[in-house]
């Protein structure tokens, strides 16, 4: 029983032409180094939340500049001194203007005859300053210190490391000895010496942190530069007569970028800690300016009776530190997946 199947060209359906050719095509879009790192960072919840917290804090702190300036920091209102937090409509003890005095919750706002429509979201300090304002200002100081430390890390640290590693030999030896001397003095001592020579305040803290913060970065960059120097693409660039500056900028810096980013993220919490630390022991920022360290020091004196004055700045400082640390860890994992466990 033979049955011939008659086939006409119409009984065939042409496949789309491209299909066969696409067999070799890579399905995932090709990602650049930064895109790849960003993709990995996005998977890390803690780091992502930290990033948003940091951005939020930056926006609030720097956005507050027109509202919280020197005048509003100086202006005191003794009639509102030491009022606890009061947020209208929140009936939680401690946030409704009540303070625990010898075991009883007392409405401080009523006792001090504060007008009904006047309230302080985070309470006031011993001079009647709004604590919320001061915390925001303090956060701004912390962030400025962090940015300055980052700036010196990125400029001085990176340049020093690259030059030292690139030139090698005698130059390298001398430059490394200099770093060794700087880093074998506890950076705290450098900071303290700078602070007592210049007068205490923002500039001297920044100068002090600038001097001591960049050495770790310089060391790591140097070590990595030594390795990169012997890579073929650097050799090729040299053979073609590229100037060292251009090689550094075009070849070394992009390849060092992950180390630079990771190291920066570790410099920032250290700088923030230092500023708070110095202000806390009384040789950093001084009145009428304020910072988280100053607020902590003020709050610590009254901790027994007005615990909120210490708790709020402490929480803000800790959140800031945790956020930078988590983001730093996240970035390290994202840029250097080998270290991820």
């Amino acid at each position, binding site marked *: 029983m033979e049955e011939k199947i008659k086939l006409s060209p119409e009984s065939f359906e042409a496949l789309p032409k491209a299909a066969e050719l696409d067999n070799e095509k890579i399905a995932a879009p090709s990602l650049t180094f930064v895109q790849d790192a960003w993709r990995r960072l996005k998977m890390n919840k803690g780091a992502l939340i930290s990033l948003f917290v940091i951005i939020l804090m930056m926006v609030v702190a720097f956005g507050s500049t027109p509202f919280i300036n020197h005048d509003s920091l100086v202006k005191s209102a003794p009639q509102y001194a030491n009022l606890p937090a009061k947020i209208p409509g929140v009936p939680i003890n401690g946030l409704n203007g009540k303070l625990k005095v010898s075991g009883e919750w007392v409405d401080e706002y009523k006792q001090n005859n504060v007008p009904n429509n006047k309230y302080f979201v985070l309470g006031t300090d011993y001079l009647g300053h709004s604590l919320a304002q001061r915390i925001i200002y303090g956060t701004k100081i912390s962030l400025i210190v962090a940015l300055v430390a980052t700036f010196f890390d990125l400029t001085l640290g990176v340049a020093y490391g690259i030059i030292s590693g690139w030139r090698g030999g005698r130059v390298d030896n001398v430059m490394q000895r200099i770093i060794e*001397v700087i880093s074998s*003095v*506890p950076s705290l001592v450098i900071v303290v010496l700078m602070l007592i020579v210049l007068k205490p305040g923002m500039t001297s803290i920044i100068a002090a942190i600038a001097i001591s913060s960049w050495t770790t970065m310089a060391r790591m960059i140097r070590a990595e530069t030594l390795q990169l120097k012997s890579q073929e693409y650097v050799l090729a660039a040299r053979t073609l007569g590229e100037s060292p500056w251009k090689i550094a900028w075009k070849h070394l810096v992009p390849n060092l970028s992950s180390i630079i980013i990771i190291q920066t993220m570790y410099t920032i919490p250290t700088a923030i800690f230092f500023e708070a630390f110095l202000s806390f022991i009384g040789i950093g920022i001084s009145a009428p300016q304020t910072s988280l360290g100053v607020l*902590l020091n003020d709050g*610590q004196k009254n901790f027994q009776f007005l615990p909120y004055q210490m708790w709020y700045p402490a929480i803000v*400082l800790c959140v800031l530190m945790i956020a930078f640390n988590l983001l730093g860890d996240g970035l390290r994992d994202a840029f250097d997946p080998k270290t991820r466990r």
Partner: protein
Amino acid sequence: MRKYLLKRVFYMILTLFLVATITFFLMKLMPGTPYSNQQKMTAQQIQIMNEQYGLNKPMWMQYLIYLGGMLHGDLGVSFQFSNQPVSYLIASRIGASAQLGIQAMIFGVVLGIIIGSIAAVHRNTWIDTLCTVLSIIGKSVPNFVLAVLLQFYIALKLGWFPIADWGNFSYTVLPTIALGVGPLAETARFIRTGMVDVLNSDYIELAKAKGLSRYGIVYHHALRNSLIPLVTLIGPYTVALMTGSMVIENIFSIPGIGEQFVKSILTNDYPTIMGVTMLFSAGLVAIILITDIIYGMIDPRIRLSGSGD
């Protein structure tokens, strides 16, 4: 080995010399005078005082006298504490600081090793997460904040330990914890990372195949191999402890070097500032050298060579 050591010691002395020089000249640039009520003093009184403290001599001579004195342990006379020699001041206070520092180091490192090991063994479980969270918090919360909280809630509210001052062991517990938490968090993270690495290696597989107990594997094989790199952290820990001591000793009013240092800064007591600066630098330089040597001895893969770094 000997050549390397000589070279290191030479650089050490050079470093200390530079520190001494820089400190000396910075002190001279400092604003203010060491006499608290200079306005009320007559010119003659000031002159007598200057002569007594050697401040009337030219700067270079003061510098040479200072360096010469330092060579035989004379750090000058404190301006603040009724003519006590700085070396005596330091000697009488170093005990408390050293005890606190060593206790904090032991507390931090030992507990850190334990927590880090537990986290590594229970990797990717809730125990691991808990340990990681704790170490991030320990690393992020400034030690002076922790100190104040401990002092208030544990000492004052619960009354478990004395609130401040210096005496028997119970006085040291809270300051030790406050100082040691930083190293603890760092150690825990460090040990966990190292141990996870080691636990994935072949010889651990072999040990498991031999039927060794889990404890035996962790203790004899994994821990020992992840401990070695920890030695490199001792230097940074020392810095952290020195820094921390300044504020912790203040909070708990412990008569130590750190508390002294803060006081001398606030009162322009130059000789004491210089003395403590030299002490901190010398201590750090010595510890870095010692840890480098120890590291070379316990890990033969790291050769102590004079070349490069």
